[in-house]
């Protein structure tokens, strides 16, 4: 019971993170709820993969891929390019914490410190920097995965077979 509450709590706050950025990026009003759902489920999938021992990079990749595929389907009903939905939804997964820890590490490295501390700091900085880069690459690859797989220029050319009369078959 406790675990479920924790799960739902985190799901909710992940969604809040996504719509906070959605508002900052001035998205159309009709897309806000969709972005909440995409952000919440994408982030939750990341934590599920993390809990299954997949690591932060694999977790971010699967989370972003879920967001990427879902955004293509949602784009048809919200009449907006998929990336308007996908980018705010993956922003909570952007490795901001790793990136600025790496930056702070680099700044600290320039200070006068002894050899031992330097090596330890160097190790942390490289670790954080590499993680930031690969998580970012995984996010961007995950979001563009549907387009890379289906090889279409625009999401409008992907037929969604839920409401056949609305889908275009160009």
């Amino acid at each position, binding site marked *: 019971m406790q675990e479920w509450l924790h799960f739902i709590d985190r799901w909710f706050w992940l969604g809040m993170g996504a719509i906070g950025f959605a508002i*900052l990026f001035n998205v159309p009003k009709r897309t806000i709820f969709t972005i909440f759902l995409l952000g919440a489920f994408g982030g939750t999938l990341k934590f599920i993969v993390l809990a299954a021992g997949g690591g932060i990079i694999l977790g971010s990749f699967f989370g972003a891929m879920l967001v990427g595929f879902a955004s293509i389907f949602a784009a048809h009903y919200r009449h907006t390019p998929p*990336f308007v939905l996908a980018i705010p939804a993956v922003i909570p997964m952007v490795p901001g914490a790793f990136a600025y820890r790496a930056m702070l590490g680099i700044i600290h490295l320039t200070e006068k410190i002894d050899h031992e501390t330097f090596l330890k700091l160097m190790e942390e900085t490289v670790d954080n920097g590499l993680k930031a880069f690969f998580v970012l690459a995984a996010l961007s690859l995950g979001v563009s995965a549907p387009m890379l797989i289906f090889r279409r220029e625009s999401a409008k050319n992907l037929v969604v077979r839920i409401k056949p009369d609305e889908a275009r078959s160009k």
Partner: protein
Amino acid sequence: MNQSGEEKVNELSKILLEVGSLLMSSGANSSRIRMTISRIAGAYDYDVDLLITHRALMLTIYNEERDYFFSRLKRTSPHGVNFKMVSGISRMSWRIVEENWGMDQVQKELDRLKSLPHYPRIIILAMVGAAGAGFCRVFGGVYLELLVTFVATFIGLYVRQEAVKRSFNPYLAIFFAAFVSSMIAGLALKLKVGPNPEYAFATSVLYLIPGVPLINSLSDLLDGNIMNGIVRGVNGLMISLSIALGMLGAVLIYGI
């Protein structure tokens, strides 16, 4: 076509460059800009080639049959993410193709999109504050720390908006915001508010992360627009550096 083809091309090139520059400054990636411009030009039976860079767009319209071409260059306005614009232009480009819009109609729609309001400032501040609190919660913070993050984010974003309004250098505006946010969250860390105040400190600057430049950078690189990808990536790095320097200021002052 016969009736002053040159004037028509002139007008079309203005519209296309306006669309491109609006998309570039609203945070669309390079392949989307190219795609949208080609789509609109195709609706008027013209072919275009484009040179897309971060701060300027160059466009050549040509017509094979008449052996005629027309070039124009336009500077893009300073960047500020605005997805309402991207979404609106994308819808418009499809309606131009499907409903055979005239050029004056397109110009009118562009003017309408430009006049669309942003969300009210207080809503932006409150929602971004809530997003910051959300990050803190996901990290594992308790409600007291969430409140600290909310306040730090709210005031930090306010400072950034004010700095941008006073036309400070954009990186400097981010530095100010990061400094103010981490000073507030750092105070909570210094006074030991809540069980894990370092979560609040770490998440108080996350609203500044350059998510759009970095994701667009990677997707441009993936599309083969290597130059644009590098430019956007370096921009993202500069923003991260500004954030780190702002935090460093607070770290040095509080000695944490």
